[in-house]
């Protein structure tokens, strides 16, 4: 009895595992383009940096002059990332 049960479980799981490989399995799970994922991650991190710089200015740790410099630099870097994102996305739709 136990053996039958075990065999059924194993067979069911084996089918579940092999399904993507069988013909007629449909498309494999869609995944993000790693370059886009990387750029998105960098973009979010950059936004967080901009926000943190603002908080630092609010808290008085950064003088307005220092903050202006840092903020401008961060925005420049953010724009670079956004441009790169657009470029890569453009490449993709052109595929």
């Amino acid at each position, binding site marked *: 009895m136990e053996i039958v049960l075990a065999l059924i*479980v194993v067979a069911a799981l084996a089918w579940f*595992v092999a399904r*993507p*490989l069988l013909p007629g399995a449909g498309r494999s799970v869609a*995944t993000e383009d790693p370059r886009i*994922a990387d750029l*998105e*991650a960098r973009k979010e991190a950059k936004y967080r940096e901009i926000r943190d710089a603002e908080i630092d200015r609010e808290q008085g740790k950064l003088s307005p002059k220092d903050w202006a410099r840092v903020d401008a630099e961060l925005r420049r870097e953010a724009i670079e990332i*956004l441009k790169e994102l657009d470029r890569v996305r453009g490449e993709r739709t052109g595929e």
Partner: protein
Amino acid sequence: MAGLGLACLIAALCAFGYAAVAAFHGARTGDRRWVDSSRRSIYAAAGLLSVCVVVVESAFARSDFSFELVALHSSTTTPTLYKLTALWGSQAGSLLLWAFVLSVAASAVLFATRHRHREVAPYATAVLGGLGVFFTGLMLFADGANPFAQLDPAPAEGNGLNPLLRHPAMAIHPPMLYSGYVLFSIPFAFAIGALITRRLDASWIRSTRRFALLAWIFLSIGIMLGARWSYSELGWGGYWGWDAVENASLMPWLTGTAFLHSIMVQERRGMLKVWNVSLIVGTFALCLLGTFLVRSGILESIHAFGESTVGTPLLILVAAVLIGSTALIVSRLDDLRSARRIESLASREAVFLVNNLLLVGLALVIWWGTFFPLISEALTGTRSSLAAPWFADYTTPLAILLVLFTGIGPLLAWRKISAGAALRIFAWPLGVTVAVAALLVAFTDAAGEPWALAMFCVAAFALTGLAQEFARGAAGLRALNGGSYVSALGRLMGRNRRRYGGYIVHAGIAILFIAVAASSSFQTSRDVRLMPGDTVEVEDYTITYAEPSADIDPEEQKLTFAARLDVERDGKSFSLSPSRNYYSGNTGDPSAGPIRSFFEGEATSEVGRREGASEDLWTAMQPDLEPLDPLIAAVDRRLLRRLPEIGPEGPTPEQIEQMREFANAQGDAIERLAALYVANPLPVTFRINVNPFVIWLWVGGLVAVAGALIAAWPAPAARRRRVSDVYAARLAKELGRA
């Protein structure tokens, strides 16, 4: 059922193995069908191991002694809760737990990231599959590690759970620790994948950061529970003894903490990449080492489970992980180098780097001290060991510096703090610190313990700085949006969970270290030997040994000798009841008689404790049973004469009757012994400790864990998108211009 369990275990091994191979193949060929299949195989392993766990736990619940595991570690007299938690009191059971948590965690992370990490995830899957193969393989191929091993014929009764483990804290301590250890394998696996594919950007961190934080939370809880158990159950009255196994759980906690901080720098500034991969490899290696230390008995320790068969394979795995990962890191050094440098020493980045150094330094010191017996044996031929004082000598100054920097970090800004701002920001914390120092020196004897005084000062600095951060943040929000102070605080936390959750963790740690310093440096400990009626004065407590008592619990086969202590202080009085539990001997000397065996095995202490905000009064007792020895010997001789000689065919019906009478007689003897103890009191040695501030240790720990949970809590997706959109809109203007 065991057959089903064993079949599922073997299938799980195959599932893990297939996952590793298929994922690797999918990674090499780019064929995503293999990757999808490998992921499903990990899910399958999780399902199979769940069946295994259910089979074993149901065997425990049913007291099915045909399972060797149940026979060795449980008994019909074990309370139900401890029957179920006995699973991890054994080697086979803890391996099963490890593999099970690994499969569930791996399934969770692979499911959550199934649409991402196209290149990294397959390698991560392969690593996790490989680890799964190792642990399930150990269960199947190492001696004595099979949870489904059968006994034929099945014994009628089991050995019972080691009495030291019959404590709620001990019930959850192992799964907490093991979950912590296992969860660190997730960021480790993804780091390996990132190294192999050279995708060393921020995205592997983003997906695994929560798992690292979760691992940290579980480890912290596990360590605190262990300390709590030690304090409540062991007769020496401390919460930390620098025992090898305690250290084994602390080391990965230290490097894991460094990792959690250091990845913040990588996420933001792309720096410290080499540190991060090294830290996660080191942390995971230490987690495996921690598992090895508990299971191998290679170092003398109160945990020593004795020589085990899995020690060597685990050690080989640790070596393989270290060597393989190091080779991989070295080969990718060019990709890991960052273009950026730390701009200024007065920046968060610099503090985080110092933080890394301090934490790794602490871990190295503890590692050296823990493994010193082996190192000295290798170098000099004799085994030498280091005790608590050496550890304290080195960890105390490092811990003080650590708390100092947990205070400095939050006060600084990323990149650089403006010159004038520094003075303003540090004014209050420094001022409060100086005031605290002055008050302590003037009104307490803190000056006599310079290390403790230093710790109190840096902790005061840290706490003031943190309070200031919250105050300024809330004030800023109120200025913008109005509302009450409390609601501003709430909004502050919601707005930036990571930062303010992290601050709460820091606050918890500072409180914890205040408690550690106070309870270590200002503890009063006395051992006294009292007869009933004797009184002793400890600090401002007047303690009288009022009367002995005894109790028998036939369910748990437990004999308890207790003492009632009447305590008086400042006109207020209360009672403490420390006691000692003796268990029917299945863990002691096999040649001892039935009554003697009660006193030969592991006895446990019930501590008598009065916890207060400023100090704990703590007592443990140990009766001197020597005067009873001749009596016990005589009773045992009489009892053993009643025991029949059982032949190879098993007991005859008269013999069964005789054995039942024997059991009754034993029960009677124990009852008479208990009555004797109460009527003719014996001298009892009491250890009486006055431990200042210990309760703040537990409070600090809870606060730290709460802070970590807040930091880990995901912001609602809608809010994240909103924030993103705001910035996108703002930048779009500039984009248009540029």
